[in-house]
């Protein structure tokens, strides 16, 4: 993809006006990760209530792609059924960001947030719900993102 195709209004808008930026007081899920290659950082806080995402916030530092994707992902999750959130995929994010053929390095930027989310869900399933069967599947998905 050319830069002109990547850096369109949607990415710039989410980068400059991040939605759901910040931290939650007592989150059910806290997950942090960074990309050692470029130093992008991301921390996600999620509250689950009645099997739904009641609230979500993120903080982080990084390029426009990584921050826009985190910002957009929080919007995609908000209020959603926990099972739907578990199913969010790489394609969902890329499609929503209008990113189709990213090179391998930039793809990592775009998918850091999904990786953080998947690992967050994994910890939640294991620690709070003691659910190992679907947790393992999620973990595998997460590790396949990079």
């Amino acid at each position: 993809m050319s830069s002109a195709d990547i850096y369109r209004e949607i990415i710039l808008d989410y980068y400059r006006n991040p939605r759901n930026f910040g931290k939650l007081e007592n989150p059910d899920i806290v997950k942090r990760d960074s990309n050692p290659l470029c130093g992008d950082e991301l921390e996600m806080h999620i509250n689950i209530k009645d099997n739904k995402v009641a609230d979500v916030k993120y903080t982080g530092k990084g390029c426009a792609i990584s921050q826009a994707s985190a910002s957009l992902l929080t919007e995609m999750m908000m209020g959603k059924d926990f099972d739907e959130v578990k199913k969010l995929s790489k394609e969902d994010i890329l499609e929503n960001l209008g990113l189709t053929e990213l090179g391998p390095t930039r793809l990592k930027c775009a998918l850091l947030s999904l990786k953080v989310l998947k690992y967050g869900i994994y910890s939640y399933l294991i620690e709070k719900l003691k659910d190992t069967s679907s947790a393992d599947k999620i973990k595998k998905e997460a590790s396949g993102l990079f």
Partner: protein
Amino acid sequence: MQASILNVEKIRKDFPILQRKVREDKPLVYLDNASTSQKPIQVIDAIRNYYLNQNSNIHRAVYALAEEATSSFEATRDKVAKFVNVKNREEIIFTRGTTEAINLVAYAWGRKNVEKDDIIVTTEYEHHSNIVPWQLLTKEKGAKLEYIGIDDNGELILDQLDKYLETGRVKLVTFSQMSNVLGTITDTNKIIAKCKKAGVKTLIDGAQSVPHMQVDIDNMGCDFFTFSAHKMLGPTGVGILWARKEILEEMPPFHGGGDMIREVHKYETTWNDLPYKFEAGTPNIAGVIGFATAIDYLSQLGMLSVREHESQLTKYALEQISKIDKMKIYGPTDISKRGGVISFNYADIHPHDLASIVDEDGVAIRSGHHCAQVLMERLDVAATSRASFYIYNTEQEVDVLIKALNHAKELFKI
């Protein structure tokens, strides 16, 4: 446009990679020389010649090939010694690079000489390779690691060194002669003079200085000096540790194995003479032989001319880049105090976005923390963009960079 003191047009013909196109049809504008330099055809041919005609292991075999390979390998040691003005060739030790050289000192010298509550002093603008080995050592020994800070101009605040030296507990002051992020040239003489007065040893990381300026180790009077071949036209996987003979003789070995021994018995071993005591195992023979040719190439140009060419180019680049609105440039503004490295941040564009946008115009610049996260923290940024120059770069290439930055400006609607 000013003419360079170097014949850049001729130089460029020696670097086949500079003729290639990237991103379909864009001429390559390679501005990541602080990371690694490109290699001239002469160096590539020297490596090829070793594998084609001399390939054999060095130092032990008696046949013709091995004798030739050994003598080419050892000839490099003499060239290196002459290039950085070292009298004793046995003080030149081949390593895999600066990183390994510093680790060698931290391990072999450090573990023997550093004790609980001793202090190692480094600086805020060091590469991770001149921080992490000292963290490992000081943690193991219960010693302390202290930092000389930098001022807003990107220069070391040397008064802080006095304070550490006054404690009487400092064992080593270790610093780079040129910052790989800010380009700052360290006031090496001043630091060494202070340390000598206090009876404290000094290690200089010359990874950025030796490729770009004349370095005279003998005159400098430090105790340890390190640099890497790959940043000065040579191959990767070759570096140099220099230390004074008295110190090297007192140091226990780093790696154990072949070549570094005199006699091995079941339970005891005696060490080989310098420099072999610190060169265990089969080295990067092809790389070392290629490095000799890189040194010849630079010597022919003359390091004073190399420095002048880069200063002129850096001055031009600084002028052009600073004309851009909302551009933040880091490091000294005085060209005599900086090498050919320019770190910057442009408006709210993250360096990774910037690097990937200019890449579309064929421009290779670096973005990130440049293995200097302590410095990034001090500058209070997550990352910077960095352009760094070498003998083959031109003012036209700086212009291509400026044009590419303008594309970023349009895309990000700055």
